[in-house]
């Protein structure tokens, strides 16, 4: 266990940047999002939840897959760049850290997504324990311990210090590189902090939410439930929930004509959108009810069916915070358990 005083954080960031780039929560006009750090930026490690999750670091909202243009009547293709420099994502919460694992299942299993893989290989995750969980949090539902994220490096703020603990080889390497700035610390303060966090987690309004009844086995029964027809109605079909979500991984591939050529890029897509998975004949899902159902079925049924029971919701509560009409995954879970109670 190491520590560094809060006042020296900027030095720490600068030191990280000597051999890697640094992505961490920055404040812009009152809103905090993960972004590339440079000296003078307003770092915000107090805000519990960035608006967008940290997934951009490994799966950016858009990225170029390849460029093509005509040269002497022939098509020339140049592939998009894979990440080839080390970077550090700092201040990731336990939920977002689990989110990366959800993405790993999808992008690192065959066929491997080489863009994602390159980023994962070059990125070191420094997580930050949640000092003050909020009422919208429910990570414990998915067995996540916000007091001990388990990333390459875990950190805790206690009093005026940031406590630092490396968990992996990558984490150790980073720690070694920063050893000049880090001093040794005992774990007592951190243990107290962990206890404190865990006790708050128990008091959260969503503390009792369980995923009982969900998972791959529930497919038919959940899919056919008449509840969806009631639940989806206020949905505006915007993509807020999917774009702030740390685990939504759907993307669309589009072409952009630059005049002299075409840039093929991918960008996040949202299953809430009417043109999601649009094909020549039209859409698989023609109504918003179907689209709405898809999102939750994916998180709570299809994904666990494919990946050994792991849910693709991490309980970060961003959708609870941000849905324009007050809808969220917890309401869905609750509605089903209420129905089943009857």
């Amino acid at each position: 266990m190491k520590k560094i005083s809060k006042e020296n954080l900027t030095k720490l960031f600068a030191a990280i940047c000597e051999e890697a780039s640094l992505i961490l929560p920055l404040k812009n006009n009152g809103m905090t999002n993960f972004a590339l750090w440079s000296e003078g930026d307003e770092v915000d490690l107090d805000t519990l939840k960035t608006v967008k999750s940290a997934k951009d670091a490994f799966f950016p909202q858009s990225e170029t897959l390849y460029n093509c243009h005509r040269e002497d009547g022939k098509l020339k293709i140049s592939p998009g760049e894979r990440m080839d420099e080390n970077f550090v994502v700092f201040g990731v919460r336990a939920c977002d850290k689990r989110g990366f694992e959800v993405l790993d299942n999808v992008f690192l299993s065959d066929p491997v997504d080489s863009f994602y893989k390159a980023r994962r290989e070059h990125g070191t995750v420094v997580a930050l324990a949640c000092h003050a969980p909020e009422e919208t949090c429910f990570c414990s539902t998915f067995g996540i311990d916000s007091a001990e994220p388990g990333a390459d490096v875990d950190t805790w703020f206690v009093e005026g210090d940031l406590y630092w603990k490396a968990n992996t080889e990558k984490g150790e390497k980073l720690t070694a590189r920063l050893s000049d700035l880090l001093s040794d610390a005992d774990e007592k303060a951190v243990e107290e902090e962990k206890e404190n966090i865990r006790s708050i987690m128990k008091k959260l309004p969503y503390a009792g939410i369980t995923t009982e009844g969900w998972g791959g086995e529930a497919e038919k029964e959940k899919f056919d439930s008449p509840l969806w027809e009631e639940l989806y109605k206020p949905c505006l079909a915007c993509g807020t929930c999917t774009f702030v979500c740390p685990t939504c991984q759907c993307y669309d591939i589009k072409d952009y004509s630059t005049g002299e050529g075409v840039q093929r890029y991918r960008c996040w897509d949202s299953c809430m959108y009417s043109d999601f998975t649009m094909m020549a004949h039209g859409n698989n899902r023609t109504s918003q009810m179907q689209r709405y159902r898809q999102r939750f079925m994916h998180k709570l049924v299809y994904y666990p069916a494919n990946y050994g029971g792991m849910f693709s919701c991490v309980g970060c509560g961003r959708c609870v915070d941000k849905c324009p009409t007050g809808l969220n995954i917890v309401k869905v879970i609750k509605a089903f358990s209420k129905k089943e109670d009857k």
Partner: protein
Amino acid sequence: MQELVKRAKELLADGTVTRVLGWKKGDLAYNPEPAFFENEEALSEFVYDSFCGANLSKYMIEASKKEGKTLVFLKPCDTYSFNQLLKEHRVLREKAYIVGVGCAGKISAEKMKEAGISGILEVEGADALNPSETLKVKTLYGDKEVSYKDVMLERCHVCKGKDHMIYDEIIGESRDTLDGDRMEKVREIEAMSPEEKFAFFQSELSRCIRCNACRNVCPACSCRKCVFDSTKFDSAQKANVDSFEEKMFHVIRAFHVAGRCTDCGECSRVCPQNIPLHLFNRKLISDMNEFYGEYQAGADAETKGPLTAFTQDDIEPSEARERG
């Protein structure tokens, strides 16, 4: 609130309406959701409090396609949107039974969090018609207090007024919440140098994640298929790959709703990144009022909007700039 439920039950019972469009209790202190209630029993979950900011008029597009009338609760500002939708034949008057509900200004959890309150468990005093001046908030981290005005939505500080523009009946009195000039920020930006203007909007718009919440909540953006989702202009976009795209999206969106936007403020309310989107709409409203005479979209369902009308001696674009 009980009065609304009572009236809804009566209208359901006597067959005037087949369903009720209102707000349903949330699972937290502050997240009620728009909801259709098909029967008396369902109305037990009905709520109308200070967090019921959502403008229900756009849901009437779908409700107009259904059998029978829908009772819809509209706040004064929502009635402008309803009128505008009526003008554009997107909703049917005969399918709506409008109960105009009183409003004392709406608040949001977002604003409370901005005011430094986190871990909200209970909010006391958020009564829709008669809220307390100071809200008592029970949180995970102790009891807090916050002034109602401080957590009120921006749009309520520049409220269009207490009058409903269209209704079948009114329940509950509205409260005056106006204490600002809605064009103040617009003027402030107008006075900036082009460089400052550009920097300001660049910084605001750079946060846009193209979630389309602003568009999808907007009662004026009622297109079956938005140009940004269709291939008609080769303009289908899903992400802001380049900073130009967010400008394109927001400029065109503002232009498409010009003369139709009632300034209901929903776009700014729902933006997850808190981008002051109303600043685009208000600029256009301000220009149209100045150049073509005062016009309030949705004040009635007949008057032609400024972009579907003209006079022979309208201002020239160059003159408009000189006035700039």
